[in-house]
């Protein structure tokens, strides 16, 4: 069974303007992907592409005016979209765990870190005694590479460096034995050497515990080096998805090509996404391909929604002009 399957997910922000007219921002438009146990999926895209919103939709953390208007999210075969909150609460924080960016902001400043980790264990297992939970917390801290864990469990969040705080959040995510880990920009704001340590840890945990993981990032380096599969998002759609090696060596969608050509290592002087304006307005998306206004080779066909073209068995792109490699 597939660990996580997101199918045709539409998440919209529905508001009313000053004239009481309904305004809909189509933030996610038919997002579909899967995560299998033991693999890391990289969800990559620029600010506003809908990466974090995808994670929040899965976790059931959307707040009005955001809502899922269509689509299905199934975790181990169970539908998360229509699940009762009480049921969902048994899953999130336990079988599905999430690590966010800004780790220091995610910790309660007035609680020692060992206690915070133990709380998460006790929230899902009320029978667990405080002392057992504390022991578990120390073991989890030890597992994520925090030296001298028993002593560090007594530390306050403000005493931690960014990298250490992120390890604490990972320990917290692990404490209830998750089968799916969602990491939203887990290393943004960390220094390169620390970033590599944290990502090494995540990869090691995925392999050791046979978890599925989803790393949300805007850094193509993170995806290229750590993710088995890559999904590229643009304006609420996944425009290309495939094995990381294939997506980077044969990018089929013009946006993926432009994104790779925007990295300093492969800076392409013939394209300039910036001069073509920003991503489209979510309140008034183009009817067909969302990339039409920035695409270097738009055509008549692009006013229709492109279908997902298979480049190979495990690699597809949402472009009328993507071609199979055969």
């Amino acid at each position, binding site marked *: 069974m597939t660990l996580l399957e997101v199918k045709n997910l539409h998440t919209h922000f529905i508001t009313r303007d000053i004239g009481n007219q309904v305004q809909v921002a189509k933030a996610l438009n038919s997002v579909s992907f899967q995560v299998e146990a033991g693999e890391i999926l990289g969800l990559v895209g620029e600010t506003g592409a809908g990466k974090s919103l995808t994670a929040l939709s899965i976790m059931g953390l959307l707040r009005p005016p955001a809502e899922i208007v269509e689509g299905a999210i199934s975790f181990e075969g169970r539908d998360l979209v229509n699940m009762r909150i009480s049921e969902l609460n048994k899953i999130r924080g336990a079988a599905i765990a999430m690590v966010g960016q800004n780790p220091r902001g995610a910790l309660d400043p007035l609680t020692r870190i060992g206690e915070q980790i133990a709380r998460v264990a006790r929230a899902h297992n009320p029978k667990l005694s405080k002392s057992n939970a504390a022991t578990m917390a120390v073991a989890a801290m030890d597992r994520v590479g925090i030296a001298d864990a028993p002593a560090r469990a007594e530390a306050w969040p403000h005493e931690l460096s960014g990298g250490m705080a992120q390890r604490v959040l990972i320990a917290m995510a692990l404490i209830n034995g998750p089968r799916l880990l969602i990491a939203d920009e887990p290393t943004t704001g960390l220094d390169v050497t620390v970033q590599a*340590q944290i990502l090494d840890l995540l990869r090691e945990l995925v392999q050791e515990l046979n978890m599925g993981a989803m790393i949300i990032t805007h*850094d193509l*380096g993170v995806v290229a080096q*750590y993710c088995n599969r890559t999904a590229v998002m643009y304006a609420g759609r996944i425009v290309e998805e495939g094995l990381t090696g294939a997506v980077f060596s044969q990018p089929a969608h013009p946006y993926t090509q432009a994104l790779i050509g*925007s990295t300093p290592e492969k800076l392409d002087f013939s394209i300039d996404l910036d001069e073509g304006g920003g991503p489209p307005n979510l309140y008034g998306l183009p009817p067909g391909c969302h990339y039409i206004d920035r695409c270097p080779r738009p055509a008549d066909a692009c006013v229709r929604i492109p279908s997902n073209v298979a480049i190979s068995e495990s690699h597809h792109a949402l472009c009328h002009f993507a071609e199979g490699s055969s």
Partner: protein
Amino acid sequence: MSEGGAILKVNNLTKTFPGGSGSTIHAVNDVTFEIRPGEILGMVGESGSGKSTIGRAITGLAQATSGGVIFRGKDITSLPEKHFRGLRKDLQIVFQDPWGALNPRLRVKTIVEEPLRLHTDMNSAERKRRVSELAQLVRLNTGLLSRFPNELSGGQLQRVCIARALATNPELIVLDEPTSSLDLSVRAGILRLLLNLRRELSISMLFISHDLGTVRLISDRIVVIYLGRIVEQGPTEKVFKEPSHPYTQALLSAHLTPDPEIGHGRHILEGEIPSTVHLPTGCFFAGRCPVGLESCTKQSPPMVNIDGDHQSACLRVADGENLLGAAQIAAPNHMPT
């Protein structure tokens, strides 16, 4: 370029700040380097390594505690603000956060025009012409000149900051993380712009960044900083291909190349950067260095020449044991493809 031709020389620059409860933060420790005419010098280091403080000390925005900054042969270290102002026309800075660097109540054209008012005797028509010339230079749509900063995107704002810095034809621009707060595609636009500007105008630049890919792309030479001290400097490709200092080797190996084919082994660094309040003795990196010796913690390593322009501050260069070997390499990335 000859040694004497440096446009800027920084000699033994040290900067401390008062910390809490009577402690002292040693932000910059005895830093010496130079920038040559027309050259882009990249400065890399992790957060807290003192990069920005060096940039601020050069541009007179922070007072050096000791040491000197020589600009065009003139000591500007402790120049009073009154006299420094005359220099700003030739010595400009672009900051990391373009949203915070522009006065929100002024129109873009007024912002770009301001240095011309302050530093030149151009009349109004000449200034107007120069402003639209600058807009074209930084590829900013001239229609945006009469807008306010809040109407522009981050990339456009950074172009305004660059236009403002270029207005008076400066000889040196300090760029302090100019692309770090921008999205990938916008960042690429700014990088293309800077590379073009470098071709069109031969301005010297100090490019401060923690992003190794960006620094490699844009710099002629680089300086690697650790805990406010230079550990290595040299021509960019030399340093990237044959890093000498163990810290540089570890730093470069942690850089994630956006190409899954180039998955390389990584030198694992234990621990984190020590505190700038309690500096280690000897080599600052000794406590984390895989090839460190007892003696490294006792004496500060001098800068030694490796090869021409390439220098490294590591005691182990002498016995050739500075290179991290296979023993210090983590398992290579194993990407299933």
